[in-house]
């Protein structure tokens, strides 16, 4: 039978009202715009306050992984699909560890320094792959961390298989939570602002068509390096933070799950929005922890849930929620 009706989507009145300066016309319009932005910040803040010590620690790791996921989505928005985010993480982790262990620098120096140094080293490592596009670039990024891991194992540099331990800790759990949570929101909101700025548009344009960017008089390699540097610095910060959080750094910084988690979080949350991966990571991180009770079956349930998400909501959770928030849907008869 032929479908006699179709779904119609119309922007809500209030969505149209808040598209321009008239969003300031009343409290209702202002709150329509502000609530989705402020509510998550407040909710996460109170969530951290009320949960037990164990879950506080889980949340710290979740925040860090969320930052990784946002960084992944940023690079994906620039057409640089990375399958080796562990590389960027490890560069930051080892930079911080080495600076702290060999040079004796304190945490408040190593954190920012490792963020920059990790970004620089990562950019240099990925640079030869930048003329590649699509899956070719992805495969190279997948290989580099696996390769470096074996290099460290074979040459026994910077700690070899044992890694470096007895590093300076972060000053207490409360400050760890504060640093990771603040970093997460800062990364999210600043990147979201950045990619809608005139300068950021060039990065978004890279995904659609890098030849047209080149024909616009802009050197695409230079812009891709900038994108990689921004994305990898953010991950390097995560690595440096986790190094000091665990007070040690080892070859697990190159682990494949560090590369896979951002992809999974982005797929669940929705690509290209930066807020999507945040949503996805905030769900997947604690979920993975909550499933620990299932023992070995944990991965099975986790994977099954991922499949359900991908099949049920291929556009991603964030896109779905935003559509419901901004539009009304109704069935109309097809004449």
């Amino acid at each position: 039978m032929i479908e006699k009706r179709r779904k119609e989507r119309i922007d809500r009145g209030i969505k149209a009202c808040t598209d321009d300066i008239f969003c300031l016309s009343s409290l209702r319009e202002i709150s329509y715009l502000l609530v989705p932005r402020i509510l998550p910040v407040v909710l996460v803040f109170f969530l951290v306050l009320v949960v037990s010590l164990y879950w506080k620690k889980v949340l710290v790791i979740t925040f860090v992984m969320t930052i990784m996921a946002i960084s992944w989505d940023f690079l994906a928005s620039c057409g640089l699909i990375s399958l080796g985010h562990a590389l960027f993480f490890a560069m930051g982790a080892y930079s911080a560890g080495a600076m702290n262990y060999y040079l004796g620098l304190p945490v408040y120096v190593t954190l920012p320094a490792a963020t920059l140094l990790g970004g620089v080293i990562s950019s240099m490592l990925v640079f030869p792959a930048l003329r590649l596009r699509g899956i070719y670039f992805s495969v190279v990024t997948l290989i580099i961390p696996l390769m470096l891991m074996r290099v460290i194992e074979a040459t026994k540099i910077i700690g070899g298989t044992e890694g470096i331990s007895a590093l300076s800790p972060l000053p207490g759990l409360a400050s760890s939570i504060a640093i990771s949570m603040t970093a997460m929101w800062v990364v999210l909101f600043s990147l979201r602002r950045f990619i809608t700025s005139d300068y950021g548009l060039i990065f978004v344009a890279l995904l659609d068509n890098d030849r047209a960017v080149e024909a616009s008089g802009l050197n695409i390699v230079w812009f891709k390096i900038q994108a990689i540097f921004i994305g990898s610095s953010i991950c390097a910060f995560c690595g440096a933070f986790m190094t000091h959080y665990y007070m040690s750094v080892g070859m697990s910084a190159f682990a494949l799950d560090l590369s896979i988690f951002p992809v999974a979080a982005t797929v669940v949350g929705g690509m290209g929005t930066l807020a999507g991966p945040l949503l996805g990571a905030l769900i997947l991180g604690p979920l993975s922890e909550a499933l620990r009770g299932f023992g070995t079956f944990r991965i099975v349930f986790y994977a099954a849930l991922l499949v359900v998400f991908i099949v049920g909501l291929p556009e991603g959770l964030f896109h779905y929620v935003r559509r419901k928030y901004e539009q009304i849907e109704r069935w109309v008869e097809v004449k």
Partner: protein
Amino acid sequence: MEYLNVQGITKTFGGIMAVYDVSFSVDKGSLVGIIGPNGSGKTTLVNVITGFLKPDRGTVLFNGQNITGLRASRITNLGIGRTFQMVKPFYRLPAFKNLVVPLSSPRVKRMGEHYGDKDSTSLDILEDIGFERDSSVPYKPASVLPHGYLKRLEMGRVVALQSELVIFDELFSGLSLAEVASISPLIERLFEVGKTVIMIEHRLKELFRIASKVIVMDLGKKIAEGSPKDIMQDEQVKKAYLGVELKR
């Protein structure tokens, strides 16, 4: 003085000779057409001139400067603008944001002729090339625009870049007669303000009306060059390429 001088350009892909020993020159302020059957190497030639491909042999001189093998972005900044045969808009961006990208180029910054923010400059340019300003068209994402508008958007890029030499790679392909008729004046206007134009075209009628010189290519070689009138009379060209078109 010769504005663009192409000398002995050769480009091969594996064993395929895409362009073989092509030389020609373009005078400042002229409108030159390049024609030829499919696969005759026209687009490859454009890609070599604009830096998207590096030639195996030969040199390209622009305004007396050797630009052979420079990065495409460098060449664009020197003043050669091009459109693509396959339109290459930024699909996810609204039409007017598409032009913000070229407006961010070093060339536009250096020329410093645009005032105000890039969005309003971009809307001005779009209005000039036929996007109705008061409609929603300039604000729609490029992915939903019809082909005619995307071709205009390609043109918008070279207008935004204020390119001195503009190369249109089959601008009219895929357009209806009405759309061609509405875009032609835009090209003539570029020409009138002193820009140099090179057009690769299959629509010979439209091209011959406005071109001052036509270059004919076949199988990677240049086989004829001259005024549209001479080209139409050229036996070799007539026989091999324009046969049907000239029967009337």
